[in-house]
Structure formats: C-alpha cells, structure tokens
C-alpha cells in the first residue's frame, strides 16, 4: 500500500508535482500514467525519499520511506536501469546492495536466476544491453523480497519480447499479493499491464480508477449521423436529452446507439445519409484527458494534438 497525500514538489518557479493525492492498493498492478514531464519520476523519487517534497507526504504501509529499517526488504524499486557503476559486475552490484540491508549473499544468486542473468553475472554491467540492464534493475528491486514494488517506465526501449516478459512478471508479482506501481506514458501498454490507473498531467491528478472504468469512460462511444434534414432530427434528439455536437454536415451523438437513432429517424420520417458508430482509440482518449496538460508541444503537431505521447521518455 502506497499513499500520497497532498504531495507537492516545486523547482524554482515550476510546480512539478501539484498537491497530488492517490493510493496504490496491494495485490494489483497499478499504472501511473501521464505524458512526458507530467511529474511521474519526481513523484516516484519522493516516494523513495530521494527527493524531499515541498509539501505533503508519501507513505508506504503508513511509514515514510526514510523511517523504514532496511528499506529494500519493504520496497523494491527500479527507477532507472542505468544507476549502476559500469565497471562493476552485475553480481558485485547486487552484492553491495544485499550487504547494505543484511540480506544473505545467496539471495544475490537467486534473483540473478529469477531474471535470467546468471550466465552474465560476472560481466561488467556497463556492457549490458538495455534489456539486460533492465533485468539487473529488476533483480535489484527483488533482492529484499519486498511487498511493495515501484517501476518507472520499465518497458521503455525494450523489444517486444522484453515488454511481454516484464508485463507477465508484474502480473505475477501482483498475484503474489504485492503492491505493484508502474509508470508509463503509453496508455496502450498500461491498458494491458495495469488493473488500476492513476492518471496525472502537469503534476496534477486527473483520475484514479480501475483501468476498465477509465477506458470505457474515456472512450465513450458516439454515433455520427448525416442527413439532409438535420433540423428535425436535432430537435427530436434534443427532446430525449442526449448530447449532440455539430460536425460540419453531420451530428455527433453520444449516449444513444445506432439502432435507437435509426428507429427515431424512421419515426420522424427523417432521411439518413450516414449512421456510423465512432469508437475513440485509447490514445485519443488519453490525449483528450491530458491534452491540456502536456508540457511540451511540438510545432509539427496538429492544433490541439500533443505529439509527445509515443516518444521515449527520458
């Protein structure tokens, strides 16, 4: 269980994280979703006591990170796979971490086995591919067999096989009853990985809900209707209290499906030229929700469409 209460971080004039409150339940994978620069990494660093919040607190099982005794036994985290001395071997990296929390030396070999790095344990970590570094980071996070796990953009830059491996791995950790909190700027990835979603933009909470609810809400279905007799149709729909939006020659109706609209049109004697269901994609939905809160727009982007959603984050 992770709890953020009014978490705030200010860098000079910039408010990186703005009065953020959310909770991460155990036994589930909770996604931490937001565009690049939304404050995800800063929030995670504050949870881990690396950065001091300007205001608010982050609690893990009711305690501040700094008050944890041998924190690796409670919280495992992979914030950046490159936080390793390149000339140190994978095993040596895990050895000093294990020693610092009085974990048995044999645990090092166990976690190397779990992530499949046993054969390269003696090699210098600087020569590892991104996928291998990521696995080493996960091994470090698992060292203390912690109940709470944090991963910051763990699939960034990985190949499909690596992504699948991490996704399955997270599910397994959650099934074992652990708290898994994983950040990403990719909604499509989170839709597959996370059961709960904490969505932020520009440091502010946008929503916290189950992934399913978020997706249905965000991708609410609409129907596009084209007709030479728009006026009577609009008034008929208006009486039913559904929401209507003009889109050039057509109406976009939400809250009513194709069949109902078709029957209504028939009763009113309105000729239809088009009656088509519109399903918003997850990406569109995400952009709609966080669009105003994307920090860096690019010039080539279409008006109102942020262009930073699928580019790698750091």
């Amino acid at each position, binding site marked *: 269980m992770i709890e953020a209460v009014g978490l705030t971080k200010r860098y000079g004039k910039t408010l990186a994280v703005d009065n953020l409150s959310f909770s991460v339940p155990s036994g589930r994978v909770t996604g931490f979703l937001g565009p690049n620069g939304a404050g995800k990494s800063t929030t995670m*660093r504050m949870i*881990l*006591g*690396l*950065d*001091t919040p300007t205001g608010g607190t982050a609690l893990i099982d009711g305690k501040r*990170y*700094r008050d*944890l005794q041998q*924190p*690796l036994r409670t919280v495992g*985290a992979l*914030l*950046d796979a*490159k*936080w*390793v*001395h*390149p*000339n*140190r*071997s994978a095993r*040596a*990296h895990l*050895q*000093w*971490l294990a*020693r*610092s*929390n*009085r974990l048995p030396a044999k645990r090092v070999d166990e976690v190397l086995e779990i992530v499949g790095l046993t054969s390269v344990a003696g090699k210098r970590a600087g020569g590892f591919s991104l996928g291998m570094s990521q696995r080493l980071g996960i091994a*470090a996070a698992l060292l203390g067999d912690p109940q709470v796990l944090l991963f910051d953009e763990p699939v960034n830059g990985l190949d499909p096989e690596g992504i699948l491996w991490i996704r399955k791995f997270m599910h397994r950790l959650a099934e074992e009853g652990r708290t898994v909190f994983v950040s990403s700027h990719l909604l499509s990835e989170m839709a597959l990985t996370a059961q709960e979603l904490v969505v932020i933009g520009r440091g502010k909470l946008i929503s916290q809900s189950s992934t399913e609810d978020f997706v249905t809400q965000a991708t609410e279905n609409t129907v596009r209707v084209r007709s030479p007799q728009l006026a009577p149709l609009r008034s008929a729909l208006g009486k039913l209290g559904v929401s209507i939006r003009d889109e050039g020659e057509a109406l976009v109706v939400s809250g009513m499906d194709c069949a109902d609209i078709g029957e209504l049109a028939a009763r009113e004697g309105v000729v239809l030229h088009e009656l088509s269901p519109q399903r918003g994609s997850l990406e569109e939905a995400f952009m709609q929700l966080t669009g105003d809160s994307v920090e860096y727009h690019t010039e080539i982007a279409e008006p109102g469409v942020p262009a930073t959603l699928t580019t790698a984050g750091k």
Partner: protein
Amino acid sequence: MTTLLATERIKLFTTRSPWWSIVAALGLTIGFAGLVALNHSEGRPLQVEHSQFGIQFGLVVVLVMAALAVTTEYRFSTIRATFQAVPNRSAVLVAKTAVVAVLAAVIGEIAAFGSWTVTRVIAGGPEMAIATGADVRMVAGVGLVYALAAVIAVAVGTLVRQSAGAISILLIWPLLVENLVQLIPGAGPHIHDWMPFVNAERFLNPPEFTTPPIGPWGSLAYLAGVAAALFAAAMVAVNRRDA
C-alpha cells in the same frame, strides 16, 4: 555501522580505480625513493628525509582516488541506489569516508616505510635509522596525513559532485594556490602559514628557515580541523539536497 562499512568496502573494491590508485601511489613514492637512492653521490650520506621525496606525489594520487570514490557515485547515479538502500545519508557518508580514509592511511604507511626500506637497501648507512621523533613523524606520520587528505577529498567530491571539478580543485589547491598566496603583499606569508597542505608538510617535515606559528602536532591538528569543517559542510549538503 559495520554493515555500512562492509557495504562501502565492497563498493570501493569492486571498481578498478582504487586498484590503479594503489599501484600508482606506491609506484610513484617507492619508485621515486629508489631513483633518489640510486642517483645519490657517495659524498653525502642519505638521511630519512631523503627517502620521502615521493610522498607528495602519492598524496596527489590519494586525493584523486578519494574524490573519485564519491564523484563516480554521482556520475553513475549509484548514489541514488545507495540512498534508496540506506536512507540515512549521514551514516552513508561517514561509512564511505571512513573506508576511503583507512585505505589512504594504509597506502600512506606502505608508501612511507616502503620508500624508507628501498632507500636503505640501495644506499643506506647509519644515518638512515629512524632515531628521532621527527624521523618517526616523517615516516609513520604519512598515513595520518593521507587519511586526512582523503577526508578532505571525499568532502570536496561530495560538495562538487563532479569528477573534473573536484579533481581540478584538489590538484590546483595544494600545488598552486597554497604557494601563490605567498605573493600577496604583506599578509601573504601569514595566510600561507594557515594553508591546510602547508601544515601537512610541516607536520611531516618541519621547515628549516621559517618559524611556523604552531608546532608539528599543532599543524596536524589544524589539518584535521580543516578536514572536519569540510566534512561537516558535506554532511549538511548531502542531507539537504535532493539525491
């Protein structure tokens, strides 16, 4: 604290730089002593101080090693992994400084006694005996000076957080700044008297032509005071800053 000391020991010795530093420091000091002994003319017998010429080169290597022990942690962000594993930052800094200082002390003792032994074997006479208190300080004292220098270097490295910057400061300060302050008209020599590495030198090798304001042990205490002040500043910084 023993856990943290063991952790920092593993960290230090699982990278290459301390090993190279040990080889370089011992090679420079003992090697230089050997060269001096081989080149000396028969007329003037060698004394203990002649075996210790290389000590200042070893000191430079120790400063670089100690600074790197902390700046590489910032360079590769392993400092964050460290604070994640041990949120008590003061304890981390104490343990790291202790481990580096002990290594520096061991390097210093081996360098000093090694230099002395090599000189004695090559060209030693009865004058090479470690007889007076000054002789003991000159040889056995090197470990103390190296250890305090290591504390200063770790503190500077922690404050600067950057290898190039920290090493520049640590090389330019003892080699240039401390000598150049003498050129300041009037106050120069007095300021010079209170430079930390001048005092390190005076502890090992009392000056023959000037009268220092404090004796050799006073000089060492002063050096320790400077190290303690810098270390305290590093402690404050490391606790206040975001990692």
